[in-house]
């Protein structure tokens, strides 16, 4: 079992977490200028790097969405960071 760290709850089993997407992943700006290909790429494609990755994850127990930095080959987790300004202050 791998242990991930929720910024609010602390260390928990990986089974309590769900992958959300890449971080950062800016939403295409301006609906009129966004092609179907750009929108499809935003919705469905991930970076899927081999190595260091920054990702958004959700802790399914408390529903906190946070940034987690990890290595996709070694599975080493190098950091978990809250996204809300309230949590970071």
């Amino acid at each position, binding site marked *: 079992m791998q242990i991930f760290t929720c910024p609010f709850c602390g260390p928990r089993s990986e089974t*309590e977490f769900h992958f959300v997407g890449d971080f950062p992943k800016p939403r295409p700006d301006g609906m009129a200028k966004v092609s179907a290909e750009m929108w499809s790429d935003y919705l469905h494609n991930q970076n899927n790097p081999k190595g260091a990755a920054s990702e958004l994850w959700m802790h399914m127990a408390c529903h906190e969405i946070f940034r987690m930095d990890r290595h996709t080959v070694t599975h080493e987790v190098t950091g978990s960071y809250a996204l809300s300004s309230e949590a970071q202050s």
Partner: protein
Amino acid sequence: MADIATIWQDLDDAVPAQLDTGKGVIRPVSDTPFQYLVSGNLAKAAAHAGVDAEGLGALARTDADTYSVRLARDRMLIVAKSEVFERSGYDEAGYAVTPVHGGMSIIDADPALADAIIQRATSLELTGSGRSAMVEFAGVRGIVYFHGDRLRVHVDQSHARYIWTWLREALGMI
């Protein structure tokens, strides 16, 4: 607001008066009938209810009859022996209250069983960890803390039948 206590099936055939494992006893808790889910400004809600604004984290302990349990950064459960909120819904102080009196089933275990249950049902360190008491318990979401020296677990009422079956099997009762 609808009384959700009325929508659940009768669990008399699934929830025993007590489960005696030989090493200790597990019981359903029925003497704390008031449970409220609170979100938003927890400090204001806690002040209104007369409970701690931080709330119990995982495996934290309380001896109080009325207390708060932290579920998330902006949500908590308030457990009480008497009514502490006169009305449900949004309050102008910045919080929202949802009564869930019959919506969650409460399980209470003897101290001798606590470590074994925690180890089988969760991935928590036995020394306690984290600000939230909401954890994955036997595969479903549960709220886990100590009341006095007794392990107490809240699960959604719809999971009660499953949890009691799991407890019987996990503790070798079947």
